[in-house]
């Protein structure tokens, strides 16, 4: 059992070290107005369960944030919003017409075709900068399971981004019809 002064110091350190990572994680998943509430609630859970927080708190905190989000969104009746969002579509004029821009557009389109589950594993690695082991901890699955999901998700992303857009949209419709 951590004494009170120690507990305050621990949580304060955790807040200083991890606030940004948790905020980003949450900001990708809900509208801006809800971000601060979800972040606070996440650290509140950490405060009440300080004894459960592992030495590397980040994956644990993100896992808690994910649960807090799920609870929030379920109660908000907007579960669907849990899916990781992508950067807002830039205006065509700003996107430019060079190859890089075209690649980005392909990638964006491919990303949008992925299932929420695929997006989530990829985002944990590409955006949250987690390792497979850490990502697995966030989702509460075994690292081997996470690896398999990540590999499949990346394959799908790669496949979708290489397709001409008409084929891609046909594929997407097929998926939706499943």
């Amino acid at each position, binding site marked *: 059992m951590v004494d009170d002064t120690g507990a305050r110091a621990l949580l304060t350190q955790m807040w200083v070290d991890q606030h940004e990572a948790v905020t980003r994680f949450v900001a990708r998943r809900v509208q801006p107005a809800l971000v601060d509430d979800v972040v606070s*609630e996440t650290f509140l859970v950490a405060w009440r369960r300080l004894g459960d927080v592992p030495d590397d708190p980040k994956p644990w905190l993100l896992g808690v944030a994910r649960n807090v989000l799920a609870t929030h969104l379920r109660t908000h009746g907007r579960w669907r919003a849990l899916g990781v969002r992508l950067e807002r579509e830039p205006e065509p004029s700003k996107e430019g017409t060079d190859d890089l821009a075209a690649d*980005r557009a392909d990638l964006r389109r491919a990303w949008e075709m992925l299932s929420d589950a695929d997006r989530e594993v990829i985002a944990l690695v590409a955006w949250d900068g987690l390792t497979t082991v850490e990502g697995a901890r966030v989702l509460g699955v075994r690292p081997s399971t996470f690896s398999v999901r990540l590999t499949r998700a990346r394959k799908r992303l790669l496949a979708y981004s290489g397709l001409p857009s008409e084929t891609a949209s046909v594929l997407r419709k097929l998926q939706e019809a499943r």
Partner: protein
Amino acid sequence: MKSPMMLQLAELDPARDLTSPGRADDDALAAILDTPRRATPIRRSRRPAVLAGAAAAAVVAVAVVVTVASPGAPPAFAGWTAVPTVLSDAETAARAAPCDTSAHTITDGPDGPQVEDVPISPVLAEQRGEYTYVLLTGDGAVGECLVTTQASGASDVVTGDTVPPAGPAVPGPRDVTTLQAGTASWSEGDTGDGALTSAYGRAGAEVAAVELTLTSGERVQATVHDGWWAVWAPGEAALRDTAEATFTDGTTARFEVAEK
């Protein structure tokens, strides 16, 4: 090692420009540190009968706050009136604009929870003081929405939706059925904590009026409109469970406000 694709993907991160360093003197941190470390449950008010009744498709029906923009919203239901102003269909449509237009069913699937949207539209709206209550229905689903209008024109919106286990069957001419009755509470948004008690259901063609009683003893008039009735009152468990219906021929009958 990150692949080029992963690196490219990093550029699409919606939060990549977001900076939010944790400061030791942050008020939000101070607020957390001020709470007792022994857990006090976060209140999640559900309507027990609904949760109990919907075993297969766990239907979630909790009131939530979607704050549209309302600094300094009133904490209590000042100005609530026991007799509502029933709104015309045109007014109903206008007042219901900020309400959700779909209810959601959540069922557990192999890949996690599956959400299905059920479109709903307003069937009844009533006003009590600065509060507009809207009942919305569609294909077995029902939504409730409470809009509080501020003097500034901003509004707070509280919504909940559900798929009642019984489903809104068409009532007989003198039938009054209850689809849901109970407390809905919330603890989010600028409005802070809040709770109300509501009840609604179907009303037959010969039902002219429905009157309930608050736990305080005060009589409260429900709105009856287009085959539906609904009522709400401030606070938790604010309604007694017997009510009186008045029919178009002037006769009355008592009925239980209980979910079937």
